């Protein structure tokens, strides 16, 4: 099976979401793909978070970068995007790119090769990552879409952002299920964090206040096989 065929199948099977008039695939692995633009967006990779914490005495396993890159490699292989936008906090801290193990750097460079790669500046990584290709930008406008790390307080149609690491929670038959999610209201979309060690924050938390039209808020919760679109009225805080 060649790549374009598998891409077509992925897109055909997926739930297509409209954002400011653009069609997008909410992939259950936590990436957003715009087939018409051949653009893949991924947010909050937080590469080298493990070693960042290790510097402060918590020696948690140093395999997060490898794990995150492996998953990213898989989605890139599936969609073969022309453009990749990493929506900020790509590295957990400013020294992350420097600390990255050589083998991981090579893996990253291999998947960057042959496509346009944008590093959107995040609060964890305001500067360009050391010695890596790709273009570092504050924000990026493509068609009717605007990619930036932090969602803006003003209502912006077509804004794709990250930063908040949204997750959603439902209770069904006395059991609570919490998953990472895309959060959108038709106008803007906040992406889930992709990094292996990234936590998440409930979309009903105060941090999201004023960002969504609550009547049309939908949480696209990540399942193991597919995305589950859950209306805002069914969501629970905490």
């Amino acid at each position, binding site marked *: 099976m060649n790549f374009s065929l598998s891409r077509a199948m992925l897109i055909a099977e997926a*739930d297509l979401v409209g954002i400011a008039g653009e069609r997008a695939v909410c992939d259950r692995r936590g990436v957003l793909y715009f087939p018409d633009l051949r653009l893949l967006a991924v947010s909050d990779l937080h590469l080298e978070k493990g070693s960042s914490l290790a510097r402060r005495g918590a020696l948690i396993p*140093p395999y997060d970068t490898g794990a995150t890159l492996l998953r990213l490699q898989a989605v890139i292989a599936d969609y073969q995007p022309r453009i990749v936008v990493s929506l900020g906090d790509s590295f957990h801290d400013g020294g992350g790119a420097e600390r990255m193990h050589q083998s991981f750097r090579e893996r990253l460079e291999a998947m960057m090769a042959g496509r346009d790669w944008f590093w959107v500046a995040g609060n964890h990584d305001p500067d360009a990552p050391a010695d890596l290709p790709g273009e570092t930008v504050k924000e990026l406008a493509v068609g009717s879409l605007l990619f930036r790390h932090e969602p803006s307080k003003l209502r912006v149609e077509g804004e794709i952002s990250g930063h908040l690491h949204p997750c959603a929670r*439902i209770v069904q038959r006395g059991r*609570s299920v919490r998953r990472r999610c895309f959060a959108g209201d038709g106008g803007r979309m906040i992406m889930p964090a992709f990094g292996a*060690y990234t936590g998440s924050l409930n979309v009903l938390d105060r941090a999201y206040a004023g960002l969504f039209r609550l009547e049309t808020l939908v949480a696209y919760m990540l399942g193991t096989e597919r995305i589950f679109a859950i209306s805002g009225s069914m969501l629970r805080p905490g």
Partner: protein
Amino acid sequence: MPPRYLLRVTEQPRLAEQNAAVLLPEPFVKWFGEKGWSPRVHQLELLAQAQSGQSVLLIAPTGAGKTLAGFLPSLTELANRPKRRPGGARRGIHTLYISPLKALAVDIERNLGKPVEEIGLPVTIETRTGDTPSHKRQRQKLAPPDILLTTPEQLALLIASNGARRFFEDLRYVVLDELHSLVTSKRGHLLALGLARLRAFVPRLQTIGLSATVAEPDELRRWLVSQASPGAMSELIVVTGGAKPEISILDSEERVPWAGHSARYATPEIYREIKRHKTTLLFVNTRSQAELLFQELWRVNEDTLPIALHHGSLDVAQRRRVEKAMGENALRAIVATSTLDLGIDWGDVDLVVHVGAPKGASRLAQRIGRANHRMDEPSKAILIPANRFEVLECRAALDANYLGAQDTPPLVNGGLDVLAQHVLGCACGAPFHADALFDEVRTAAPYAGLDRPTFDRVIDFVATGGYALRNYERYARIRQTKEGLWRVSNPAVAQQYRLNVGTIIEVPALNVRYVQAGSRGAASRGGRVLGKIEEAFLETLTHGDTFMFGGKILRFEGIRENECFVSNAPGSDAKVPYYGGGKFPLSTYLAEQVRAMLDDPQRWKKLPEQVADWLRFQADKSVLPKRDDLLIETFPRGNRYYLVAYPFEGRLAHQTLGMLLTRRLDRAGAKPVGFVATDYALAIWSLGDMGWMFKNRKPSLATLFDQDMLGDDLEAWFADSWLLKRTFRNCALISGLIEKRHPGKEKSGRQVTVSTDLIYDVLRSHEPDHILLQATRTDAATGLLDVSRLAEMLSRIRGRIMHKNLEQISPLAVPIMLEIGKMPVNGEADETLLMDAATLVEEAMGPEMAD
């Protein structure tokens, strides 16, 4: 393991005074005389053993003067000690007393202070617990008391402090109270390692263990002394006897329910007993049972007797008030969970009521020992079975108590996570040599079998995380000096260690605070705190839900940060039940007894008529399981097919079995939907006709229950199970991989902290042999899944499976069938729930809205 029957040595008459005088200093003899007492044989025996330099294990029932016996060697030696000259060398701690409970240490301070004062001994006694203010701790380091009463965690902290060796240089005795309960947990492992360290500081150190009756006293005897010579044991003194307890099973005039755990039916009869006695202690197995029983008793409490509630989730101040009232004999009854299990003296309890099944014969004996703390008077106890299976279990336990059977669990090997914590603690105290520490650690009984490569991996883990990638060398927490000594790299490491010491992992819990009804906690700061409730339970509540806590019906108003806001909802019913589950699984021994009873109609005569009738019906409609067989019934009901198995191996083993069987049934095409497990039985329901499948050997039951399920199926399920993740979290916290949460530092929130679930996933896929995963698997197999018990069962029933394919539900199956719908269903995937929620949205709003 077969139950052991201890040789019972009834206490001999007390020694004549002149014999006592040989061992006891004069002021002690005088004091006993003034009190009109004489020292007991085991007290003098212990003293003699200690004076000849031996460590001793004293096994005695409550009320036998155990505490005084434990301290006599210290007190007599301190009495004979020459006076310290002014300006003379400071004296260090003489005796360390360690108990599992803070409250016990405080209690002992009071009880020991009295004789010390009356005898006129120049002995200082102080406590040191988590509640001790820092200025007092500082002072204790400079001017230590003669006797320090403390907990395992405080000992670990003392060992990890600078100058630990000097602090303990005068130590003579370590008295370990409630040893039987200490040794079974990771706290026990930490304590054993601490003891090994103390013995390295002071080689002539003697230990005195005080314990209730246990199945294998030799395990404790080894635990008390250095295993440098393998298998070495302390001396042993066993006191038995006292009057035989009078235990009865409530022969209720009401109907004993088929299922459930509330024993609500017996409330009026329990109340009548409370009225008939001075002070009644009511034991239950779970917090929710305690809440319910308390509510029910007050509903019928027409004389407004002072009846109180006590469990570990209640606010500390509230608990202290109850304990104080109890000590002053101001209460007529107290409903309690295991927080009161241990040996605190509770005034004049003359009746113990045990609600629900005791789950173990030893547990029952220890709880009943609580009544009437004088050992020559019989204890009186009533067992209240909450359902029909519990009637059988109570009967079995009761027979066991008379026989003196013991079913305390066997000790397990020391945890590697605990060892990692200890290694870091040692480094915080003083630089260590790996060879010396390895030898020292192996003198602790739980670690006697530790091999050097594993030990070295633990050191590597403490230093740099022990990862194959080896890129954390520059962040090492401990480093080796040129001389080969391991020392902490910087003071921050020691500081971090001190904040994280201990092996008690608290379940994430929120404060429960009063607010005005309807305020959702937003407007007001709220009223008083009632206690703490697990986050996991609160997550299932929505605004307006009512539940029981602290003896009250509360309405859930909302959650804000680490507080849960509630308001009073008097008069309403608690809508949301709380499942703490049975904390203790049915012991193997009792399970066997219950099976034996089912198989022997002669023994049914001792059972209440309604229960015996139930068994006769079962014999008529289906069949009763033979003692060594496994009965499996299949029947259709509604649009489902049911399989009910009766292994009687406890809830944990049944849950594991349920998980594995559903995997297999799924592969066989039976389309299993879910299962529930109780201590006695397991029910699985499916869309496919399992009865037909088994009859046609597609698959046969023998294949389905083959032992090979413990191979690949277990491994595959294990890896993804939330149980394993929870275990990993404990190991990660105890080993110091990640920090515990601390009050005041909890603001960080979910998006900042790295959850141990994520770490687990990453580590498992990249380094499955990492030492922490190894520790996790070992823990889970023993603690959470009861794999060994399941394995024994599967091998026992080979060729002994009895299949009954029925037209309809059998009498024996009724109890577990009633649990369906009341208990959370296992095996129902989160994905299904998500699917339901997503479908609801589509149904309600049309597909275009869902997109």
